[in-house]
């Protein structure tokens, strides 16, 4: 359930960075930010910064490298949120 909420928040963050020809409905867990959603690396940085603000976490370079798909992003968010609470 929480995961659904996080997916919704993440999708909302992604939306303004999607190119005109990519529909928000096409974003799912397996979407690859660069290959499927056509988001460039510069916009991906902005997505990461928005994710940091939204979830009150901080991502490092290795997280950025690992964050290839929407599912990867949710896993990183879950992990960082857990670390924060611990």
């Amino acid at each position, binding site marked *: 359930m929480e995961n659904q909420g996080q997916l919704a928040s993440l999708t909302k963050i992604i939306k303004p960075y999607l190119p005109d020809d990519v529909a928000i409905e096409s974003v799912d867990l397996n979407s690859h930010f660069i290959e499927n959603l056509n988001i*460039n*690396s*510069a*916009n991906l*940085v*902005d997505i*990461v*910064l928005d994710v940091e603000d939204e979830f009150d976490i901080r991502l490092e*370079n290795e997280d*950025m490298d690992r964050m290839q798909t929407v599912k990867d992003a949710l896993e990183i968010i879950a992990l960082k949120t857990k670390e924060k609470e611990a």
Partner: protein
Amino acid sequence: METKQIIAQLPYSPPFLFVDELESVTPEGITGSYTFPKDAFFYKGHFKDYPVTPGVILTECCAQIGLVCLGIYVLDQGTANAMGIGMSSTEMEFLKPVYPGERVTVASEKVYFRFQKLKCKVKMYNTDGELVCKGTISGMFKTPEDDK
């Protein structure tokens, strides 16, 4: 790093170098200036019989001083070797024309430098201290390490 070293590392040359000198630089921002030569190539066609510095050139000048010089300083690579620099986005407003021979000063303020992306707020002034253009410029800096 001294300001002269930063300019020496710029991957541009005339007629596409738009930095004369840097007045100040810190990790948070940079100020530099440039005088547009009266005989610069673009005045021949922009506009016909009415030379005005094109907005794209003003943007380029803001980017070279405000983004690239600041990026070189922040990264302090030692060697720039035209390290992969790519302008990724610009959003500019143009308020006053800049005529041939005018000297402009660019002041840039870092918004953030994260994950190799530098985002800056830039402002360009003429010698009367009037705001000529302003905006936000971002770029990606690829370091040689990224290729390893």
